[in-house]
């Protein structure tokens, strides 16, 4: 019992650190799927990460403003259901290129046969 609590504590600490660095990848994937406004990005992340990655609206706005400043994303105004216009964010050409390069360098390697076996994914 004590051992389980200890293992769980270690695991959640590891996961917290791991997830922190993942938000950018999830935002970019959401935007590669098509232009989205902030709530849609959040829903996409929640759905496709199967609830393991959740993010505050404020964190998303902050990240998107930063990416806009760096010309990684851009936005256009579109009609909301009601109320003011929404900002629809999408990846710029630079954004698409760095996402593609990042996936090639850092994600594809996990599809190596040996690693798939080691991770018991087969």
């Amino acid at each position, binding site marked *: 019992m004590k051992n389980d609590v200890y293992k769980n504590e270690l695991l959640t600490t590891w996961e917290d650190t791991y997830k*922190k*660095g993942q938000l*950018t990848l999830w935002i970019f994937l959401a935007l590669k799927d098509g232009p989205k406004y902030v709530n849609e990005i959040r829903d996409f992340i929640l759905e496709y990460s199967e609830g393991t990655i959740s993010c505050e609206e404020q964190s998303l706005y902050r990240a998107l*403003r*930063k990416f806009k*400043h*760096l*010309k990684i994303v851009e936005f256009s105004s579109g009609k909301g259901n009601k109320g003011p216009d929404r900002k629809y964010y999408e990846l710029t050409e630079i954004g698409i290129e760095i996402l593609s390069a990042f996936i090639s360098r850092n994600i594809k390697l996990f599809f190596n046969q040996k690693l798939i076996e080691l991770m018991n994914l087969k």
Partner: protein
Amino acid sequence: MKFITKNLIAYALLLLVYTLIFRYTLSNVLESEKFILAMVSGVVYGVLIFITAWILGKAHTIKKFVFDAGLGFNVTTYIIWGLVSELWFILGFNSKYENIRSVHYALIIWGVFLIIHFLIYWRLRSRTIKGVLKSEIFD
């Protein structure tokens, strides 16, 4: 990186007003030999500058993610304070207790610190992309 921003312009305008009021007050209280008031006005002026630069500088950094290590604000303060002070003496608005040499000494010493500040900024710039700290881009 965009060096001159709305916040910096707002700061420059406020500083100009503060400095003119400070110079006017200082010369008048010195002329009336109210030396304690002269010290008080100096402290109030300094605190006002600090608070204004702090608020506008912080908002500027958060909004634009720009990291300039406060150099823009330091340079602006140096130029406006120096210009107003020099003109104050040239136009003869100073009191008999004020000496232009004290302005020159302040500008020389401050100038040395400004150069050091610039060197620090130059060094830190390599840690940024478009003014954003690399460590904060994808955090």
